[in-house]
């Protein structure tokens, strides 16, 4: 139950029943036929400025499983050095890194569900960094055999 001595505007307990409904829009208590309210299936609301709802926690866990699998593949590839040409290993490792980067940025950082302006700013920074440093490193013959 709510702590009556708590300062106003504070959430004192974890139970969804405890906080005012406007502080927990995802968990609604709908009245039933009788007097006892029933807990409605939680619905994760959207934050201001989002164009789609966030993924569900189950989807987050599935993405984490993919990230773990890709990381395991990366590490496995590392131990294939000597058996597989280095060029091939580098291509695969970079591809795996891009996949992991994309998954985290798209789903965990919500670039997929947020307004496109955030994605544009971030992609601008990433592309600028990669382009700038690729040009500099190429000019310094870092990639030359």
């Amino acid at each position, binding site marked *: 139950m709510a702590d009556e001595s708590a300062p106003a505007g504070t959430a004192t307990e974890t139970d969804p*029943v405890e906080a005012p409904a406007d502080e927990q829009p995802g968990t609604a208590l709908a009245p039933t036929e009788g007097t006892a*309210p029933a807990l409605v299936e939680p*619905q994760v609301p959207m934050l201001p400025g989002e164009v789609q709802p*966030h993924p569900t926690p189950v989807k987050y866990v599935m993405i*984490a499983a993919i990230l773990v699998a890709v990381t395991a593949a990366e590490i496995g590839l590392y131990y294939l050095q000597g058996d597989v040409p280095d060029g091939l290993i580098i291509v695969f490792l970079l591809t795996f890194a891009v996949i992991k980067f994309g998954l985290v940025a798209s789903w965990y950082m919500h670039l997929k569900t947020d307004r496109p*302006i955030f994605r544009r700013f971030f992609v601008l920074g990433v592309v600028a*960094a990669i382009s700038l440093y690729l040009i500099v490193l190429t000019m310094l013959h870092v990639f030359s055999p």
Partner: protein
Amino acid sequence: MTTDQVAVPSEHDVVKAGHDAPATGMGVSNTKLAMWLFLSSDCLFFGAFISAYLFYRGRPQPGPHPADVYNIPFTSVTSFILLMSSLTMVLALAAIMRGDYRRLRVWLLATALFGATFIGGQVFEFTEFYRQGFTLSKNLSGSTFFVLTGLHGAHVTAGIIWLLSLWGLATQGRLTSRDSERVEIAGLYWHFVDVVWIVIFTVVYLIPK
């Protein structure tokens, strides 16, 4: 407030609230936009140090060299822990948006603890490298390696402090669903240090020289 007194926000209200644009010039949250701009600029920041490392790696210089001292199984475990901290961070955001404050506290603390474990692993790794003679001043590979990974570690440490402060607010009941964006912005920062480590782990540790 008792159960019977709780007003029910309708589904329409919830969805409508999500679509409402903040009253700013660009129609998006200024704080969130500022964080994205910071992260965008941080890409260039880390890009400079990764490039410096790539430039000096493999050049003739006194040993030991990075590849001689890396402990890939150990670094893989710490990388895995940091990756999992991104999952707990996003679960913390989902929890506060649902109004589930108990899980919010659990996931925020778990994220901070995963981050602290990663930092502990980095301190152990640095200590081992020093013991094997691979130091900041040994050669240019060492200088660029320690500066790059050390700066990343500093970012993680700042993130841990941020998360613990949010956890403290949540523990005192001063972090509610109305403050979801605060958790989201901390999450953006945290996920960014994770994606930077994804790049560092691949480019610095795994790619053969």
